[in-house]
């Protein structure tokens, strides 16, 4: 079937332009795409890791929010979900994995233990993972329900879309 070329000025009237073209800034477009494809690097440590494992499960599917896969390699991941208690022995590997992630990167402290040491106020546990990495979202709970973690993920998405820089940039600007 032959297509007769039609001049644009005839086909599209000025008032119809909004239906065909979206105008935005590059920042907003990038924020929209990156917020909808945050791939977690599950840093599963303890009990919270089990609830984190149920995030890709059929019921609480986070793939529908764009977090399609849990990337084992930190080089390919965007979000580090610190799920579980961080012992002093584990802190250097955790920082090393965080450093290996490429920018931009976000950190979610899932559960009470990674947010503040939880119920373990003792010699063995780091009292809050924000002592060694900048944290974007803390999700309370022991362990938090998968819906709560999804809520944390959506908060990060909102944060990205609102143009708030990730936590490491805020720390830099503070220093």
């Amino acid at each position: 079937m032959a297509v007769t070329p039609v001049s644009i000025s005839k086909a599209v009237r000025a008032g119809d332009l909004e239906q065909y073209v979206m105008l935005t800034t590059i920042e907003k477009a990038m924020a929209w795409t990156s917020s909808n494809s945050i791939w977690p690097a599950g840093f599963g440590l303890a009990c919270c890791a089990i609830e984190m494992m149920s995030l890709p499960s059929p019921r609480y599917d986070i793939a529908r929010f764009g977090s399609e896969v849990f990337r084992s390699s930190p080089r390919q991941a965007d979000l580090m979900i610190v799920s579980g208690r961080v012992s002093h022995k584990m802190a250097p590997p955790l920082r090393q994995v965080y450093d290996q992630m490429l920018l931009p990167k976000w950190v979610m402290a899932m559960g009470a233990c990674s947010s503040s040491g939880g119920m373990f106020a003792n010699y063995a546990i780091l009292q809050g993972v924000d002592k060694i990495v900048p944290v974007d979202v803390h999700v309370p709970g022991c362990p938090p329900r998968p819906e709560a973690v999804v809520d944390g993920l959506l908060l990060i998405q909102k944060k990205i879309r609102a143009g708030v820089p990730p936590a490491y940039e805020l720390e830099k600007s503070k220093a």
Partner: protein
Amino acid sequence: MSTTERQSAPVVPLWTPAVIPDGAPSKIDPPEGEDLITVNFGPNHPSTHGVLRLIVTLDGEVVVGLDADIGYVHTGFEKNFEQKTYWKGIPYSPRMDYLAFFANELAYVGAVEKLIEIEVPERAQWIRTLFAELNRIHSHLIFLGTSGVELGAISLFFYCLRERDTVLDLFEMVTGVRMHDRYPQFGGVAEDLPKGFYAEAKKFVNEMPQRIDEYLDLVAGNAVWEDRYRGIGVIDADTAIAMGLSGPNLRASGVPYDLRRAQPYLAYDKLEFDVITSDRGDAYERLMCRTREMYESVRIIDQCLEGMPSGPVMADDRKYVLPPRHELHTSMESLIHHFKLVTEGFRVKPAQIYYPVESPRGEFGCYLVSDGGTKPWRTHFRAPSFVSLQSTAMMAVNRYVADLIVVVASLDGVMGEADR
């Protein structure tokens, strides 16, 4: 030297039983040689067994040296227990083995109950048995799912998680939380079963055997699965006992030792179930033992639902048990009891006790030393994963690196309880 001339280390054939090495039983020192690479597995690696670090020396693809480094999730549980009164220690107990949380709680609560010599009502025992078996199913489901993930057979994981959510729904219906309920309390359980529980649990019991058949359909008889699992990590009965293995790890090697039968606790002596054993002792049999145990657990849950006695779910001894909340508004003695129990706690006579339970991983024991005061003097938990991880080196040596993953997966270790 050209690469075609160099031979890598010899690989032991399949079905070779593991041999306890000379020197340290849990470590294999690599031989001298050039071209040996030392690789670090972990502590952060995709196999979801938690934070285990294996220092592996490889000759090509063959493991010639192995040392396990644990302690990356050491939480100081035992020190924390000494800080808290007995009642306040209950929320700490499930967080050790976070997959079999109910078994942990039963061990701690059971140990203290024996020391204070309190009589637990029968209904509470049956409810605890029911939940212990539900927890066993939960733990074995995750074991099965993660075994699949480690081999790359990820579909199995999603099937198992679907059932796991149903099990956790049952927990949530009764206790209010999915994991880490502080449901066993000294003298019974915290609350009675709600009205809709029987129907939901019965539905679960009726459909679960078909689901287990579905999982077996996926993997048993699958040529790739069998090739990966059969003949790997063989351990015979005497070596297993000498290395302290228990639970399905031991039963797959032919020793019919199950604490639910050998040293019955809760309501197990009134229930009918089979102890699943096998005599080949390899990774495949350990996996099948656990899967078949799920059928037996469903049987036990069914018997618990049908034969549940009626009655109170909490002992009546106000010196150890909190009074029901509605009494606090009317009775002065209840208020004082409540106050004393929550702030000071009850005193336990000076003694020591070792109370083991059959956790899904094996014998989980609570060793408790009391000094007559309100806080434990020393608690030490015998974690089956801690013990079974010692056997990794001897099972994995002189086989391929891919088989190392299978060995670690088949031992079903949870680092939370190994490190405590």
